[in-house]
């Protein structure tokens, strides 16, 4: 049970993110939801990287135990960088939308329907 705790947190974070994306009516809150989703996924990747009875992959003078591949950490870093870029892009688009529409309510940002 205690081993699966990180994954429980991951599930909760992702579900909260999806809730915010699907049900919130404000663009900023939707973007917060996307951010939460990203955090959940990052946490998921990091949690996957943990292996019992293994050591960090530092070679000099290490005890002869199994080493953990540091791939997931690299993945998470990349994913965080991409997340920053996405967040900046999304927020600047919301800024532009707010400048022209004077609102960030999804029910009113609908000039494109039809």
């Amino acid at each position, binding site marked *: 049970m205690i081993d699966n705790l990180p994954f429980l947190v991951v599930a909760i974070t*992702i579900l909260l993110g999806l809730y915010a*994306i699907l049900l919130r009516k404000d*663009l900023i809150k*939707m*973007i917060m939801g*996307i951010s939460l*989703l*990203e955090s959940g*996924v990052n946490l*998921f*990747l990091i949690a*996957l990287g943990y292996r019992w009875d293994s050591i960090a992959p530092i070679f000099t003078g290490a005890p002869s135990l199994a080493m953990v*591949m540091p*791939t*997931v950490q690299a*993945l998470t870093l*990349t*994913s965080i960088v*991409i997340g920053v*870029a*996405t967040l900046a*892009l*999304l927020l600047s*688009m*919301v800024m*532009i*939308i707010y*400048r*022209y*529409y004077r609102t960030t309510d999804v029910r009113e*940002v609908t*000039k*494109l329907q039809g």
Partner: protein
Amino acid sequence: MDILFDNLPGLLIAIPLLGAFLTPLLSRAGDSVRNTWVLIITGLSSVCGLLVASRVLETGTIVYTFGVNTVSNIIPPDSGGIPIRIIFTIDPMNAFMLIIAAIVGFCITLYSVSSMEKLSGKDGFFTLVLLLIAGVYGMIATGDLFNFFVFLEISSLAGAALVAYRIDKGVAAEAGLKYAALSTIGGMLFLVGVGLLFAQYNSLNMAVIADRMQLTGLDIIAFVLFFTALAMKCGAVPMHFWTPDSYAMAPSAITAFLVVSSQASLYALFRVCFTLYGGQINPLTVGWVIIILGILSMFIGVTMAIPQKDVKRLMAYHAVSQTGYMLLGVGVGLAALSSTCLSQSIGIMALKGGLFHIMNHALYKGLLFLTAGVIFYRCGTRNLNQLGGLGHNMKWTMVFFMIGALAIAGIPPFNGFASKLMIYESTFLFNPLLAVIAMVVSILTLASFVKVFHSMFMGPKLPEYEDVKEAPTPMLIAMGILAILVVLFGIFPQQVVDALVAPAASALIDYQGYITAVLGGA
């Protein structure tokens, strides 16, 4: 020279990236310097893409490992038998997609050099165009799931920024936001799938995962996640709502390349179904899911397209509908190949038709979007009710539009007919109802484009477009290249199929060959 040739797959990414990062610097030296630079860079990368593709078609799969001493077609010994390193795997299927991206990529840059003349902020625009091209090349060429995610995000971020480039009183920003949000959610779903696979197989390499695939419960979840994310990105029907918005609001040259970017996602979808889960998933079930998505996309896309007033929005819905054809072809291929009562040739024929349609669609839909861009460039509107009588002054544009429209409707001497015929023939043997639906959709497409053609080009000259001019020469050249290819592929379909599509189809089916090519017979 040898070094250069060995490094072609790496240069495929390196050249557009270097070009993108140097563009802001060179645009300080003036517009013409920047335009020349961008053209040289895209020209070089397209040449690179074509050279890689021709080498692959000659010599077989290329495996390019980043950061090793020498080129070797198997995994370098210092990574302990497991490809931890980043690798590019280019087999004939990838080569096929690379050719599409190379042709369309060059044409859209040539086009946008002159179509963007009036607008501001061009250095950012061209930087993003080159990033988008690099992202699509990367998506196509990579042999690594996580790398695919990275390139997917690069291309969707650049694409979203380009969709929102013409802010257009916030409307384009709205479309861009939709595209960016959707792509991010799709990317995250994909990443969860990658995580699930990594947790079980300790690798990110597609060939290694395909080799070790056990099809546990988690794998099926990962498959569903991949499928959803990629179907979302390629604009199949239940998740198609971003397509008309972003295709309509993006500058036309970008729309033409967004089509290619969607098709790169489509390629990845096929790669996941055929190679990553090759021989493990139930082909009949997945095949039928793809077929149903395809039928829905075809039908809903075309019915939504008919009432549209905005010409680019109309074409965007047609893009959804044409994506349906590709899905139908490949889905029938997947289902028929597994079936015992049908002969293998039907499945292969359907697969070839679906793949050939990808290439044809990229060409004629790119051509159509570019002609729509010319209309917008010269007349300032995309509303069909306000346009009319343009055929008197814009003869070449009219001819190009006609070629594109006839090709999309599947009229004989053009390439759309060739691939659609292959899809009809094989689908009819698989399930006649599907073929009938496909033909009906084709007729509706023709009807819709006849309407567009009539309301844009026919009729008397309208007073407000009395002295409208023909498109500038670079735009005409760009459209001309695509139009010539559309006609050529229509006249000589068998040669194209034999040279490009058939190797791609057999490479897609042969997942064992893909694994062997990467793991070196291990």
